[in-house]
């Protein structure tokens, strides 16, 4: 509570929007990590069993990771 008072005293405002904004940023970052795990796991799955269109599936997960990288950059920098 003392810390909160200190922040308020310094003129900062804690709003619902700012809290949700931080949570969304953390969530995007976690999704980015999960996307990276997914890319790695897909390449391991493809190593265990090679299937038709397996290459396209790997490309799909890689595209998702790139998209997440782009979106996370937008959300974090916004």
């Amino acid at each position, binding site marked *: 509570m003392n810390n909160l008072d200190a922040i308020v005293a310094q003129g900062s405002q804690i709003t*619902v*929007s700012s809290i949700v*904004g931080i949570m*969304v940023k953390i969530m995007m970052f976690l*999704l980015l990590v999960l996307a990276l795990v*997914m890319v790695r796991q*897909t390449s391991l799955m493809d190593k*265990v069993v090679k299937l038709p269109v397996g290459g396209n599936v790997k490309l799909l997960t890689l595209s*998702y990771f790139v998209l997440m990288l782009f979106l996370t950059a*937008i959300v974090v920098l916004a």
Partner: protein
Amino acid sequence: MAEIFNAAKQTEEIPELEELEKKGQYRSALGGLLVSPDKTSFESQENDEKVVIMGRKHFVTNVGWIAMACFAFFIPLFWGEFPFIKVLTTNVNFELTLAWYAGLLFYVIQNFLLWFYNVYIVTNERVVDIDFLGLLNNSVNVTQIEKIEDVSYSQRGMLSSFFNYGNVEVETASEQKNEDGRRGPDFDFLSVSSPALVVKIISELMEIEEREHEISRV
């Protein structure tokens, strides 16, 4: 000696498979059952080992998560109805919507991957069951065709009868116990397409293996 080898090779042909190959059925890469699939191999495959069938759960078993994803897709259109979200600034609202769709896309891709890579493979020598449980765990079960004792299938419910999918149970000589301590099937292929055909092909392979075994003994 050469005659014995020729006899062994001749027995390796399965008439049903040839017929299906000629008709061009079961060739779709995203299908529940692929007969003599191209570009399919697995880690421990031997050089002279040929993939006879490869299968996974029937596509209709994905309906649950697809319906869930469709429902979730439309939720951001009703953000305004939630009092908690109403108070957010436009910027944060936009970020929240982006995060929602990113999470939804992750959910869809993950479920698709688990369906796509959870496969069973039947070769002319072995049966391989590959299970991926979540993103980080996997298990690969392998058995020789000659060690299979019994193979059966079951279809329960209206959907499985309508879409022709069911569970195939392969029992081997090895001891395998369920969580409750009872002996269960060693290989359980759940909700696979055309289970009767799968059982028939495995049975034929078992007979071929038996004949080859007898020939080699002679």
